[in-house]
């Protein structure tokens, strides 16, 4: 698989206003009985789809590429299928006040950017997108900021900074393949094995 690359995405967003969204909700375990990465979009939030008012079912969600969710998004299991399913559905970034560790790593590896922004900015962004689902939201990995129009004036741009591990950021901006990076360290791994094991 070619290494994922990401600079910036500007798109409509979906608001999923829930804290502690765990990976069993993102993709229930019964969808993990697979040996490939194919078809996982069908499992995305499978048990929440069809519930009255579930945001991903709304017509306005079609074509959205950014998910805005609550604190501790992606907690629970290590299943990378959660990141694969979000990416397969069409998401390129998730914005939340915080992320679970394993999910954040899995997402970055897929080129799905986890943008953790301050709770105050997050609340403001949710309100704006809820009121105007057509709002274009930008997740900019180069500048490490989330931007959106927050007023009628052409220059009414709101911004919220986010942090991404610099190494992971460089990999995504440059399309570096992490396994390739590790394979190039073969001599050092062999040297380590010689000394320590």
């Amino acid at each position: 698989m070619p290494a994922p690359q990401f600079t910036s995405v500007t798109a409509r967003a979906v608001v999923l206003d829930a804290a502690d969204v765990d990976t069993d909700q993102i993709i229930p375990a019964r969808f993990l009985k697979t040996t490939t990465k194919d078809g996982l979009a069908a499992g995305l939030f499978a048990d929440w789809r069809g519930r009255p008012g579930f945001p991903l079912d709304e017509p306005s969600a079609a074509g959205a590429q950014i998910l805005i969710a609550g604190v501790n998004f992606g907690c629970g299991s290590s299943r990378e299928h959660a990141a694969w399913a979000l990416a397969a559905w069409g998401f390129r970034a998730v914005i939340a006040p915080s992320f679970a560790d394993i999910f954040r790593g899995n997402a970055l590896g897929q080129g799905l950017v986890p943008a953790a922004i301050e709770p105050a900015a997050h609340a403001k962004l949710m309100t704006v997108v809820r009121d105007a689902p057509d709002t274009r939201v930008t997740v900019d990995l180069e500048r490490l900021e989330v931007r959106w129009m927050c007023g009628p004036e052409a220059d009414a741009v709101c911004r919220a900074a986010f942090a991404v591990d610099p190494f992971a950021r460089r990999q995504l901006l440059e399309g570096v393949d992490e396994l390739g990076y590790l394979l190039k360290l073969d001599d050092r791994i062999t040297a380590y094995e010689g000394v320590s094991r």
Partner: protein
Amino acid sequence: MTARTLFGKVWDAHVVAQEPAGPAVLYVDLHLVHEVTSPQAFAELRARGLRVRRPDRTFATMDHSIPTVKNPLAVADASAAAQLRQLVVNCEEFGVPLWGAGDPRQGIVHVVGPEQGLTHPGMTIVCGDSHTSTHGAFGALAFGIGTSQVGHVLATQCLVARRPRTLAVEVDGALGPGVTAKDLILAIIAALGAGGGTGYVLEYRGAAIRALGMEARMTLCNMSIEAGARAGLIAPDDVTFGYLAGKPHAPAGAAWDAAVDRWRGLATDDGARFEHAVRIDASALAPMVTWGTTPAQACAVDGPVPDPATAGGADERAAATRALDYMKVEAGKPLAGKPVDVVFIGSCTNSRLSDLEAAAKIFAGRKVAAGVRALVVPGSQEIKRAAEAAGLDRVFTAAGAEWREPGCSMCIAMNGDALTPGQLAVSTSNRNFEGRQGQGGRTVLASPLTAAASAIAGAIADPRPYLEAR
């Protein structure tokens, strides 16, 4: 020399390379593999023409999707069967040892690793499973990884990792009768919150921890991830060495003595600094149960379910209200007395021999309440044999409980063992997320004692009166 923590010593000893101000390349001593999170990783190796670098440091077992009946492969549904078969093919092609269906060593990955003596103090251990933290009970740095990283470790025995911060969980006092390691970890998670350990490695310390046996320590470390911490460690001591001695993959002879000398040096040095610390009084704890849909939403079995209005922030209040609604639980009242449909005793948290012995203490001479389905699922073939030799299986079946073959079973409900919509289960497993044990199912997490007492009562029950009656 600077005083170092247990975590710091293990981490420092495994750094192969360090990016300036960035992550480390960490060497992995032991890589455990199962059928669900590995197929895409093996496929990646195949696509790139790579081999498994250290098949001698890699072990595979079947646990997540394997039916918990005799001849599991004959009854597995088509997709589970294909996944199990793919693991056989992958292990053969890449030379990885596999403890598959029918092997006397087969079982849940975090049960069989320690049981076979693969897990040693001071090791780095990874697996495509978040409950890999279990192995931290031995003073190993053990954590779950995604499938891409499973591929990285298969191919290079290394992964890219950022150094986490350290959090000391100091547990003083002593657990009271009927209060177990499971109750302790549920109390710790409730104190930290579902995301409170994010970015940290926990070290469990103090008198109450030292007093725990190895299996109880595994229960404790197992659920570190439920507070958001990828790993939880306990310093190795004579309890650890006593458990490991003589295990098939433990060092033997002079190598054993040398290893124990080395392992004794792993404990956190006096004066070493943790970035954060919490303190828990074990003697103040009662048996715990979860009332919500994260493991952090827990309370004493005899205490009132907290009112969402008293929860900290708006987010927490909303989450608590949503959880109570899903669970059909009323705030302000104890959970004890709430009718149950299913009791599940098993999982990488609580399926070891001491867990089954605890449950059997309650089941002995009693009957599972009418209308309740009780499943007892041992964590491994070895535990199953030991339990049967001790007559525990007959205690369970005489009480009316099902005695199953080893696997993850109803903890993750991938293998055919599942709740039906609306059913309420008391489970010794680790996650009470919505639908975790089956679509629409509701889960109350508890200790094996509480689970067994609830099976007898037909409702959520405090196990202590059942123990006193003995």
